[in-house]
């Protein structure tokens, strides 16, 4: 492969930071959730890149498990969002301030 591995890692880093910004800046719970998924994907990408670098498949297997868990997590998270939306009639994270001190 002629592209250096670090290029993929840099892309992964950029995607991860974009996801981070999304978590902090957006108010819609679903979009925040999507940003988290973006972060997970970025990490998966870096796992696979490292796996290629080390000439082993462990990284790919890890990425696979990450996807499985992400799927489960998305299911539960969306269920929670739906439940909250049903009660509060709002999907904005800023309206969920019950835990204020």
């Amino acid at each position, binding site marked *: 492969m002629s592209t250096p591995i670090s290029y993929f890692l840099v892309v992964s880093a950029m995607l991860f930071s974009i996801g*981070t910004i999304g*978590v*902090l800046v957006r*108010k819609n719970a679903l979009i925040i959730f999507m940003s988290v998924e973006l972060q997970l994907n970025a990490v998966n990408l870096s796992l696979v890149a490292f796996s290629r670098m080390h000439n082993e498949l462990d990284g790919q297997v890890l990425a696979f498990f990450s996807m499985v868990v992400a799927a489960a997590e998305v299911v539960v998270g969306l269920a929670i969002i739906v439940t909250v939306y049903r009660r509060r009639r709002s999907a904005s*994270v*800023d309206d*969920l*301030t*019950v*835990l*204020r*001190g």
Partner: protein
Amino acid sequence: MLDLIWLVPALPLAGAAVNLLLGRRLGKAAGRLATALVALAFAVSVGALLDLLAHGSEERVHVTRLFDWISAGSFSVDVAFLVDPLSITMALVVTGVGALIHLYAIGYMDNDPRIGTFFAYLNLFVFFMLVLVLADNYLLLFVGWEGVGLCSYLLIGFWYERPTAASAATKAFVTTRIGDAGMLLGIVLIFVHVGSLDFGVVFDEAAGELTQGAATAISLLLLAGAIGKSAQLPLHVWLPDAMEGPTPVSALIHAATMVTAGVYLVIRSHVLFEVSGTALTVVLVIGLISALYAALASIGQFDIKRALAYSTMSQIGFMFFAAGMGFYTGAMLLLVCHAFYKALLFLTAGNVLHGLHDETDMRRMGGLRADMPVSTVWFAIGALSLAGIPPLAGFFAKDHIVGFASTSGRDLAWILATIGAFLSALYIARPLFLTFFGRRRNEERAHEAPGPMQAPLAALALLTVVGGLVLGVTPETGRLAVFLEPVVGAVEHGEGALRDGALIAISVVVAVAAVIVAYWIWASERVNWQAFPERQPELAGWLANAFYLNALYAWLVQFPGKGLGRALRVVDERVIDGAVNGVADEVEDASHLAPAIQRGFVRTYALAFLLGAVALLLFLGLRIV
């Protein structure tokens, strides 16, 4: 007996302690106990005097050390009592006249509920006064000095429910404090220059070691204290107001003893004053001016006790005048005789107050000769003595001093002193005639004081009559002068412009003339003295208000005082309160920031996480790089 001299202050101290603790239970017995103790102290003093006389005249100095008081490096002071002619004279006057006044007070304060406390204070005063006169070093003297100031405050304000009494007491304390501050500086300077505070050491060193400038500074500072305590210009304003206290207090403290403490200090420190020279002149000038000022002020007073207060100030002015001329024995003779007749005058005034139920205004007296014949005699003896009618004691004392002014070449001073003598006779004959002679202006029948109260007055009257003849017929050879010679030096007979005989004649003529004038104005009904305030309101005002010095002082103190008060209030409100409240406000504002951390917004929390993560990564990254 000389070694037992510590008993002399200790006995009244014991009396004070007992009366303070048990006074309420003792009641009248408190007075008897107090009087007995002071009389006992007098007896011990007489014993000490006899012991002293047994020595040759050059050896009459005895120091009794009690214990080491302060020992700090190069500074050491003992509690020690000095018995020499000067101190024993003072001690005898304090205990003797003091005992008589105590005796009088038993009757005078008979109905007062706090009689026990009164005698406790009175004994305490005698204790401190004795410490003052018997001290053998400046620091112990200062202890006594401050102590008598305290007792004066307690006794002036004895009837503390009266606001005038309370404020008079405070005024006395504060005014004398001003002088005391100067005196303390003087004492410090003595130590700085001489290295010790013992009289013996200081006076031996002074002549050789002290520069004139240092001696002047020290003397003037000590003089400041003397001026305050002896109520001379300009720190005299407390004395007339001090008459708020009970009359025995006025007699003891403000006539016979405490106010003479300043004279004693000057005479005791005369070596220092003489090295300075300038300081002695200052003493002379202050004495003379105070004497004349107070004489005029006394003529304008209608309150009998205030008239006597200004009279005291004037007489002490004469004592300072004498000391300022170097005529210490003359000052001491006047001091002793003045104690006799001023106590007599005050206590007789006490009789009048007692008889008229505390009326002090002489405009409402008059013709009391009929009701109180005995008191009339006492007052007449005292007044004529002060006026300088021979052969009463006051004649000798006054004449010596006035004559000395002339024989020492101070002609201007002699003229002023003679004028002062005329005014003295005038101002003391005035209350005599206003109170006891003339038409009766009070409907009340005054009753004479009972026997036990008259006994001390009889003793004082006797002393007034014979005192001069016994103690000092001539300035140079009088018994007192000779007795005091080892301490203060001999008196030399100078030659002035006038011969001795002429001086005496002028003295007597002046005195007699003044008495006759006083009779004519105030007792003979030929002069309408009551209309004087209306006809000459300004002059009357000046005299009655003692030349408005009180008002001047009040004004002088008021402006800076109020200004300072206002400034400090601003500081207190804006700066101090501002700082404190400001801190509280800042904390409150800061506390509003704190909840921001926990508003409940998830995104804020997420931001916090990220902040931590970034910081951590930064830290780790920097270590790698």
